[in-house]
């Protein structure tokens, strides 16, 4: 592996560590409080592998489990944390909270917490790119889960993307959980890939806990979309290690299944790979963890120091001021 390749591999580990530290810090902060965030603990490789394959001209739509996608895209954890805490320095001025964070400056647009909402809007974002809006050659990536694949809009979205030949990458993070219901209760095995293929989409099913495998598959899909302008579909097989939202005792989760997936933690797998290659030693790994923890600690300090929004601004931003764009 080249020196550059080694660096990228290490960067992906660093990004996953930062995401994990961010989400675990939030979980700790929210413990015992009001219902908190929907984390993506255990799914970090999906976000880091795919987002790393995108360019700044590309657009991303995500959902309620969005922190990993945003941080992988370079979002400032302090501003994310401020948003979750409802403060003015959040990406959305505190109006979103954790569930619908978008950051236009990062190309993370139109986050919807309505499961499937992101799938309804993604073809329009890709259509705008196809019709000349934004930088030439940009593509759209939409992240959703196996729960969204059970929504009717999943099929409408895939069908339209294929019929209209939209530059759109569908990324299904199949994490086995649809809120509090296991996927086995809701669909046949292999349904997601079969459904996507049924719509005429080229599908790759990949180990979603192997960040290098995800990254390689994403690079291939993105290159294919840029080459012919047609949509592609990635199914990333992963697992939601924590509950639907915090706090959640996960009493409904099969302990053996959870243990099996905990043993396949994507961060540890990536670290083990680097350790085996000699690209990382135990001290360096510990140091990376500490660096991530320190960044998130600073982010939390920033967020808590950020002001609350002025209640007099309650109804700001509901409507566009006329004349701005017409």
């Amino acid at each position, binding site marked *: 592996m080249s020196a550059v390749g080694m660096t990228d591999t290490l960067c992906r580990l660093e990004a996953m560590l930062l995401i994990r530290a961010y989400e675990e810090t939030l979980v700790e902060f929210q413990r015992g409080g009001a219902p908190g965030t929907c984390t993506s603990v255990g799914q970090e490789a999906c976000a880091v592998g795919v987002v790393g394959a995108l360019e700044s001209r590309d*657009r991303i*739509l995500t959902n309620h489990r969005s922190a990993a996608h945003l941080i992988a895209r370079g979002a400032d954890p302090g501003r994310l944390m401020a948003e979750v805490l409802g403060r003015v320095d*959040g*990406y*959305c*001025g*505190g*109006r*979103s909270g954790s569930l*619908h964070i*978008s*950051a*236009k400056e990062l190309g993370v*647009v*139109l986050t*919807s917490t*309505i499961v*499937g*909402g992101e*799938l*309804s*809007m*993604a*073809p*329009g*974002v*890709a*259509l*705008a*790119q196809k*019709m000349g*809006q*934004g930088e030439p050659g940009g593509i759209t990536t939409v992240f959703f889960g196996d729960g969204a694949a059970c929504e*009717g*809009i999943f099929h*409408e*979205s895939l*069908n*339209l993307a294929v*019929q*209209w030949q939209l530059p759109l990458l569908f990324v299904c993070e199949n994490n086995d959980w649809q809120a509090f219901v296991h996927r086995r209760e809701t669909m046949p095995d292999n349904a997601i890939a079969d459904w996507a293929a049924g719509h005429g989409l080229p599908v790759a099913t990949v180990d979603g806990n192997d960040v290098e495998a995800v990254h390689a598959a994403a690079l291939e899909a993105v290159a294919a979309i840029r080459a012919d302008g047609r949509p592609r579909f990635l199914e990333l097989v992963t697992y939601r290690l924590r509950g639907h939202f915090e706090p959640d005792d996960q009493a409904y989760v099969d302990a053996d299944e959870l243990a099996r997936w905990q043993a396949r933690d994507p961060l540890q797998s990536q670290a083990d790979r680097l350790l085996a290659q000699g690209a990382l030693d135990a001290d360096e790994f510990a140091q990376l963890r500490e660096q991530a923890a320190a960044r998130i600690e600073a982010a939390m300090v920033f967020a808590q120091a950020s002001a609350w929004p002025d209640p007099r601004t309650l109804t*700001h*931003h*509901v*409507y*566009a*001021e*006329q*004349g*701005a*764009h*017409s």
Partner: protein
Amino acid sequence: MTRMTIEQAIHQALAEEMRRDERVFLMGEGVATKRRDLMQDFGAARVRNTPLAEAIIAGTAVGAAASGLRPVVDLLFAPFLTYAMDALVNSAGKLRYLSGGQFDFPLVALSMTGSGWCVGAQHNHNLEAMFVHAPGLKVVMPSTAADFKGLLKAAIRDDNPVLFFTDLALLHQEGEVPDGADHLVPLGQAVVRRVGADVTLVSYAKTVGVCLQAAEQLQAQGIAAEVIDLRTLKPLDETTVLRSLRKTGRLVVVTEASGLCGMAAELAALAVTRAFDALRAPVVRLTGPDAPGASSWVLEQAALPTAEAVVEAVQGMLGDAVVVREALATT
């Protein structure tokens, strides 16, 4: 001025705005099939037939609107909007606010509704108030050809999502439309269709015609009714309604839509909260029933407020005042 049908006014508005702004494009079930001249003039990229799938048509419009385009979607019949609710209500109406103003959603959703075609409740349902209730959306429902053209052009130029309802019984009605591509009717402005000092009749869409007929009959009885056509339901032109109410002291609201939590309820609330001191009689609401639209012509018509009902309501409100006038007239 040119005489044209409301359908022609809609078509002209679409053509002019597509010519004016290349970001404007049209999609829906059959738009390319039915509007062949637009297809020929602007090409298949900007006049798009879609699958029969309202949720993804509306969702795609939302995504495109936030990404620099200005979509107009034809969702055909208003009841089909319920399939598009997530995109319209949760996305177009809320994501500007939830994102702290990062995105605009300049889109227009067209749909038809209203009795007159005997199509039954799943093609005829005046559900405009549902969208008035949803934050972030604007709602337009005109009654004349000139307003259809001017308001549709203004809606397309608006940076907010606009629900544009066409009363299908009006579609082939003709009217004079000002010439030129600059004919715009601003959203949020009601118009006084007939001036009068005794009672204010407020309506929109085809029941404006019912109010005008009633006003004519009332005139014969010496009662001067003022008729207000709201045109835009949101933003609501409260000023025009209140100004009239302060003059007449009497309000009758006439809608084809059912009454519960509808525009008539909102206008009644406006009257009692903002002009209670001016009221000389209880507000009267004449609305459709809390029942789905029937298909049978007789039942469909039975659900509509009639001019006779408006006249009767006004007579009831004026009561003693009418008697006094009649006495004066005979002396």
